[in-house]
């Protein structure tokens, strides 16, 4: 079977983001961009399925501006077989991405789709669930363990109270949580090899998908800053301050 992973180009998780002075968004010029960390985990999981013989081919999908090719190349360097880019300059929101994914999935026919549970830029946590809904497939979000056998996927999920295991009829959508695996680094020979791997490029129009944003961002602001407080010299002083000054104990 084929596996499809979706990878998003985001501001690197180590970068301290700055809100633009005109309050239209955050500064992205000259800022380091990387693959969304949860999507790296998705790529890794698909590669492990291929290495285990469960999956024959891993397709890496991304959508957005032309530079998203670089994010696909990163997935190819990790080991994905080929890429699909849906290229557009329109701001893409999760519902639109889910529709683009559906269109590509209908062409490619993967039986398992693995996506990061959340992108660390918009923090939406929607695309996987939306895709599963549009396809009429089952979903397992926040996965920390995935086992595929006999036409079904057993997935352990990280939930508020602990862990929960569900069994899904394949084909299915799985979204990754932090503990699913530790993604590999791309080796230099694999980075070189990735340059030769094919990437198909489409536009939303080619796929017949309307990607017009449904949410309009009116403004983006910096949150109020928390002021640092004081250092105390001893446990005794700390407890005294919590009791008489902060009055929280």
């Amino acid at each position, binding site marked *: 079977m084929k596996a499809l992973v979706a990878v998003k180009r985001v501001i690197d998780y180590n970068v301290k983001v700055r809100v633009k002075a005109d309050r239209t968004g955050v500064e992205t010029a000259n800022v380091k961009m990387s693959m969304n960390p949860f999507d790296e985990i998705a790529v890794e999981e698909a590669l492990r399925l291929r290495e285990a013989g469960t999956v024959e081919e891993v397709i890496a999908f991304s959508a957005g501006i032309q530079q998203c090719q670089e994010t696909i190349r990163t997935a190819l360097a990790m080991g994905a077989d080929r890429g699909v880019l849906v290229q557009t300059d329109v701001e893409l929101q999760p519902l639109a991405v889910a529709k683009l994914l559906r269109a590509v999935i209908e062409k490619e026919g993967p039986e398992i789709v693995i996506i990061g549970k959340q992108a660390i830029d918009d923090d939406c946590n929607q695309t996987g669930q939306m895709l599963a809904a549009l396809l009429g497939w089952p979903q397992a*979000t926040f996965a920390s363990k995935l086992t595929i056998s006999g036409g079904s996927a057993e997935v352990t999920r990280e939930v508020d109270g602990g862990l929960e295991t569900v069994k899904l009829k394949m084909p299915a959508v799985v979204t990754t949580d932090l503990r699913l695996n530790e993604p590999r680094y791309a080796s230099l020979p694999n980075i070189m090899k990735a340059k030769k791997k094919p990437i198909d490029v489409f536009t939303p129009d080619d796929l017949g998908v309307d990607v017009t944003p449904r949410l309009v961002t009116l*403004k983006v602001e910096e949150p109020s800053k928390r002021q640092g407080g004081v250092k105390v010299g001893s446990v005794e002083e*700390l407890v005294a301050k919590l009791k008489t000054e902060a009055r929280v104990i």
Partner: protein
Amino acid sequence: MTVLVVAEHDNRSVKPATLHAAAAAAELSKAGAGDIHILVVGQDCRAAADAAAKIAGIAKVLVADDAAYGHGLAENIAPLLVDLAASYSHVLAPATTQGKNLMPRVAALLDVMQVSDISGIVSQDTFVRPIYAGNALATVQSKDKVKIITVRGTAFPPVAGEGGSAAVEAVGGAGSAGLSEFVRAELSKSERPELTSARVIVSGGRGMQSGDNFHLLEAVADKLGAAVGASRAAVDAGFVPNDYQVGQTGKIVAPELYIAVGISGAIQHLAGMKDSKVIVAINKDEEAPIFQIADYGLVGDLFKILPELDAELAKIQK
């Protein structure tokens, strides 16, 4: 039009997250959105529905009781919500793992772009939500007919869980979609309060060095009636289970007192706790970023400080 809140519950009682979501619904109602209804969907969930009927400000409780709804499977519950959504202007759920799992599925079936994890309400169609781990706040306007929303609990003080007397009305759905089944749950058992509703939280990070050392934290937590939390580093290292994690992609908390022990303060962790009223940081590295946001910082060896703190708290409690 009317606002529908999807209750978070365990079939017997309503979880506190529901009261925070109801508070957001009350703000919408004040902005002109009309009455508030609550949906309790589960299995043998009549007791939870009766509890929901007592929540202040609720006009009606809808209860959907079916074996297919027992484990909160989104594949089974989403079609029910899609049917109900036709009568509502807003459908809200707490931004818990349950709400995050369910609501985007509902939104996509309705061809609606969900507004995730809102922390403020400007008007019936305009909301504030944190992005980039809370390092920016976006004000967004929804163009969709029905607003599908998840609510950040810490941003909306809970409504009263008692005092209301809403009517309870049964609703039915299609039951099982036949796509997924529940296998098992391994839930952490604890006598301590839940992280997201605790008044005090004591959290440990990589500096704790091992899971065994968490008993030092637990002793302090128990003196304070506190919940125990952790940073991602402590969870990844296997010191404590995943449901302890506080941060951008873990739990978002805002207790009256948050004590961070052996936590350096990565932005992803701060995203989950920086709205706490009072923050205490205990760390041996005086340059640790956590001190920049802490109200009270104590530099030193946590293995010495925690037993001292335990003893000092015992003293004042006498």
